[in-house]
């Protein structure tokens, strides 16, 4: 592979960051917002600490009062008690605001990072499925969840737990140790053990739930087929069996999941009991006064509030960690398209697109998706690439759109290799309608201006007219300001495709690439859209068109047809030439009637 202006394709990628713990890496994402999180932890510690201290100070107050001292001896404690009563609520409120704010700010950082990485890696193949995209988005948002619920509570627990243990140790050393042990068990050991124990039931239930979900999907989505073939009762029986299995698993495993609650209660009770036992012995032995004794026992009683938020954190860590792993998987992916080191400029004029010996595969062990494709799109002409699904058509489109680099061969535009152009310049020259073009949840105007940000309404209307969408838009009450809804749900399938075409025409590329522009349309809309597409393409001046399709409709109106199968061109020629030849095209036409 010798392409001028580019280094060898095997150039070393920057080494992937060492595989560190994803949870730590997620937390590290919050580093720029460290001060805010620290403030949050301080406020949280003040809130939790105030709650524990309230009972400790109150115990001191009572134990002292029981000795009937002068009122002045109590005044500090009285003031402190009231102050603590107010502190807890106010600091908790502030803590929640500060940590949520910091987490949101971090989320903005993370989203931008994820987005930038996605934009520079191949944006199509790996994330094509809608489920994967929405999972990636929720994985990104999981960072926020981790920071609000997973980072602050443990840190607050460490600070306040440490303080409580220190106070108790000062009062009675064994009592402090006991409390430390109790807090560690209830705050760390039990939640982790419960999380580990919960994995088995979680897995078993996930399997059972998966079966149930599949049975339900089959029954509800397949209802017409099931009813027509008299098979509905069997399908419902299958749902019942899956449901019974899930219920059985859930009921059997309930005991394992109850462990955490029981163990926490036991540790709390036994720690208080131990503190009482130690205290009574120390008081009887004369090593502990009555006042610190009361403080010790009531502090131990109140201290378990410190670790109460931790079990839910531990239970969620597994899921958050999995989110983090998937997230860093994306962030660590190297770009699929390299910017040329010595970019060239595209010469002016109407360029001839030549594809020569193009080979692409998606991994070293995979079959060639494109295996030496040659094709020509002369200036001003309309050329179609036809083939069954899996022939390599979308791979060709992703090379032309610069979503990925060729593994071998070249795409030449007016003699210049597409990969020698800056990526954005290549996309300015070769653009169009990608497969499943996205319609953004915005207005028609914004969706159109994507392709030409400065465009005035006149230009937009001109493009709409060429895409035969103008009269529909005029009929809408808000005209260009019509909100199209998420995924353009307020438009029909045909209107979405026409909108995508209008957008592509506005971009005014030199080569217009249309990748399956009529997929998912019903047959009537398909024929109408295809006819209008080809008319608009033919009318576009100084622009050649490459139509990628699996469908024979309208192909009699293109200048040249390439039939590809299994990544190779099997035949090419005009509609008439191909019909005259005894090949795939004629067979397909005959079959379609």
């Amino acid at each position, binding site marked *: 592979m010798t392409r001028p202006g580019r280094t060898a394709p095997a150039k070393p990628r920057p080494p992937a960051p060492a595989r560190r713990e994803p949870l730590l890496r997620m937390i590290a994402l919050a580093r720029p917002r460290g001060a805010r999180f620290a403030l949050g932890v301080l406020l949280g510690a003040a809130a939790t600490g105030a709650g524990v201290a309230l*009972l400790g100070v*109150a115990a001191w*107050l*009572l*134990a002292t*009062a029981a000795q009937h001292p002068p009122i002045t001896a109590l005044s500090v404690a009285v003031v402190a008690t009231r102050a603590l*009563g*107010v502190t807890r*609520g*106010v600091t908790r*409120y502030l803590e*929640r605001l500060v940590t*949520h704010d910091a987490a*949101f700010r971090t989320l*903005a950082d993370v989203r931008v990072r994820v987005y930038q990485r996605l*934009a520079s890696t191949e*944006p199509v193949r790996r*994330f094509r499925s*809608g489920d994967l*995209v929405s999972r990636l988005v929720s994985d990104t948002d999981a960072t926020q969840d981790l920071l609000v619920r997973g980072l602050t509570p443990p840190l607050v627990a460490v600070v306040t737990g440490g303080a409580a243990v220190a106070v108790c140790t000062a009062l009675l050393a064994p009592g402090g140790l006991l409390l430390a042990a109790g807090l560690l068990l209830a705050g760390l050991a039990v939640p982790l053990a419960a999380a580990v124990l919960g994995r088995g039931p979680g897995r078993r239930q996930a399997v059972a739930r998966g079966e*149930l*979900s599949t049975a*339900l999907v*089959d029954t*509800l*989505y*397949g*209802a*017409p087929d099931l*009813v027509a*073939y*008299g098979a*509905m009762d069997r*399908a419902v029986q299958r749902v019942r069996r899956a449901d019974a299995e899930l*219920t059985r698993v*859930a*009921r059997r495993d309930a005991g394992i999941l*109850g462990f955490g*609650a*029981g163990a926490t*209660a*036991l540790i709390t*009770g036994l720690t208080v*009991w131990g503190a*009482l036992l130690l205290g*009574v*012995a120390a008081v*009887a032995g004369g090593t502990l006064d009555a006042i610190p004794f009361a403080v010790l026992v*009531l502090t131990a*009683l109140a201290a378990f509030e410190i670790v109460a938020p931790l079990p839910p954190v531990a239970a969620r860590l597994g899921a958050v960690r999995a989110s983090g792993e998937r997230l860093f998987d994306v962030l660590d992916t190297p770009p699929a398209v390299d910017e040329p080191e010595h970019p060239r400029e595209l010469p002016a004029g109407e360029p001839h697109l030549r594809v020569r010996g193009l080979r692409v595969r998606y991994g070293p062990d995979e079959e060639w998706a494109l295996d030496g494709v040659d094709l020509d799109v002369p200036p001003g002409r309309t050329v179609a690439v036809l083939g*069954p*699904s899996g022939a390599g058509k979308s791979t060709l489109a992703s090379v032309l759109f610069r*979503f990925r680099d060729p593994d071998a061969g070249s795409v030449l535009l007016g003699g210049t290799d597409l990969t020698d152009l800056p990526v954005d310049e290549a996309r300015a020259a070769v653009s169009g309608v*990608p497969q499943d073009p996205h319609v953004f949840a915005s207005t028609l105007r914004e969706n159109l201006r*994507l392709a030409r940000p400065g465009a005035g309404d006149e230009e937009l209307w001109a493009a709409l007219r060429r895409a035969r969408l103008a009269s529909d838009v005029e009929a809408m009450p808000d005209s260009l300001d019509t909100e199209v809804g998420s995924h353009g749900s307020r438009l029909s399938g045909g209107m979405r495709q026409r909108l995508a075409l209008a957008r592509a025409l506005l971009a005014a590329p030199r080569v217009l690439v249309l990748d399956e522009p009529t997929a998912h349309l019903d047959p009537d809309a398909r024929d109408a859209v295809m006819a209008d597409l080809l008319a608009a393409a033919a009318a576009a001046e100084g622009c050649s068109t490459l139509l990628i399709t699996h469908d024979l409709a309208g192909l009699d109106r293109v200048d040249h047809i390439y039939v590809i199968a299994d990544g190779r061109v099997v035949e090419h020629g005009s509609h008439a030439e191909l*019909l005259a030849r005894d090949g795939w095209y004629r067979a*397909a*036409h*005959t079959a379609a*009637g």
Partner: protein
Amino acid sequence: MKPLDPRLVRTARAVRVHLAVTVLCGTAATGLVLAQAGLLAHTIAGATAGAGAAELSGAIAGVAAVALARALLSYGAETAALRSAARAKSELRTRLVDHVTGQGPGADGAASRPSPGAAPGDHDPGPVWLSGQTGPDGTGTPRAGELVTLATRGLDALDDYFARYLPQLVLAVLVPLSVLVVVAGADWISAAVIAVTLPLIPVFMALVGWHTQARTQRQWRLLNRLGGHFLDVVEGLPTLAVFRRAKAQAAIIRRVTEEHRRATMGTLRVAFLSALVLELLSTIAVALVAVEVGLRLMYGQLDYETALLVLILAPEAYLPLREVGARFHASMEGVAAAEQVFAELDRGGPAGARPAAGATAEPVPGTRERAPLLRLADVSLRYPGRSADALSGVSLTVPPGRRILVTGPSGSGKSSLLALLLRFAAPTSGAVLVSDPDRPGEVPLERLAVAEWRSRIAWVPQHPYLFDASVADNIRLGAPDADLAAVRRAAVLAEADGFVGALPQGYDTRIGERGARLSAGQRQRVALARAFLRDAPIVLLDEPTAHLDPDNAAAVRRAVTRLLAGRTALVVAHDRGWSDVVDETVRLTAGRIETDEARAGARTGGAEAAP
């Protein structure tokens, strides 16, 4: 949204059992809280008064016993709650599935084998798909996905409701009241402080809650739009890349997320107020009680043990309220899911499509080998909630063995015609009449035993639904007892044997959810194999080759030609490419059959279009 939905209690027996167990556990837990406080106060005061470990050993052992008992109770209550939750979810799910599939307990027998006494409407198809939306894509409706989510993840949120929320709700009633009674017996002033502050908490929380809700609802659209922006942009990344807008979007993402943060923080500042009120009131009350008790203790109006008891109990009165508040929102998701289930159950079947109960089913004219004569007499069909007829005044006679092509633009009522014959829908006016050609007398379709009637039909929808099962089981859909040889014969006729043989486990290969392992054309051929195996005298085909690439379309055409031979058939297709395999062509426009002259014109047009 009510904290305890009466319908939930009425519907699921498991819920009633759970409520009883929860109240019992709650009572025991309340007793243990009081016992622990009493024992602790007694021991601390006793030790302070000079009692030794020996004298206090009973109380200290009591503390240990209470600890053990509380642990066992927590464990038992949680376990029982999760077990009840599992059962209650199962009950709700079963009722939901029965309802939406029309497979209620009474319908079982009749659905598979119609007995002479069975009501024809026994097999109520249910509202999931019989909503006039079975239409063009043929596979269920958008609501199917919603229902699956509701029956699985939605109902799972009830775990939280049963295991965390309801027990706390019981405690939130029992504990404060018991504490109040005990404290009142010990020190009425403290009891007064608690009695005044406790009711303020729910009042203030409700006030703040209403305010928040109003504010959130005002902001809801904004929050939703800002929140969905990132997903929208990531999904549209290829499109953005094509138009060189990918890089510019990064700044927009930051800006929108910032806007989202500001808007959300505005809501949170108010939303967190309810927690602030709760914490403030509860801790201030405890502080007030502590100071008051301390002063009275100093002046000798109270003994140390009583003072300690009051101090230990005071926070306990507020704790369950805080817990209920914290768990309210998470558990309400479960309640919302349950309410959705009830709404679904209330929706009921489409009454119009059902004949009067008690009518007797008549035997289906014709036999499994010989098709009856079908006559549509001035049939109109309007789906509920629609303003226009899907079919209006359609009259059509289909003698046995006649193959008819129904063409027309999308939305012209082609698929509705098939839906009528399948009894997925009933005519709004007019009638579909069935008769044995050799005998006199026509029977309206809806008076026939529906399952037996459908067993005379092989239907291949535009997007046949394939199940997550083996290829063989998918082909066996309408003939569960067919042996593999019969399945293979059907597959050979449907041009499916070749690619099925190439699958790793042949006919035993599981084809994934919705037949994901197969291409659209292969799925179509499996569905045709289904129809061959069904071997029914009437064949209904809906757009057999739309969306297929030429290779697959050719294979499907060969199979369809074979399937139509010797059968009565209605083939729905938008183009006229099928006219050479049928006996007659009917064109539908806007729900009406076009006149003969127009049809003649259409035929000529079809002939011209053919190469």
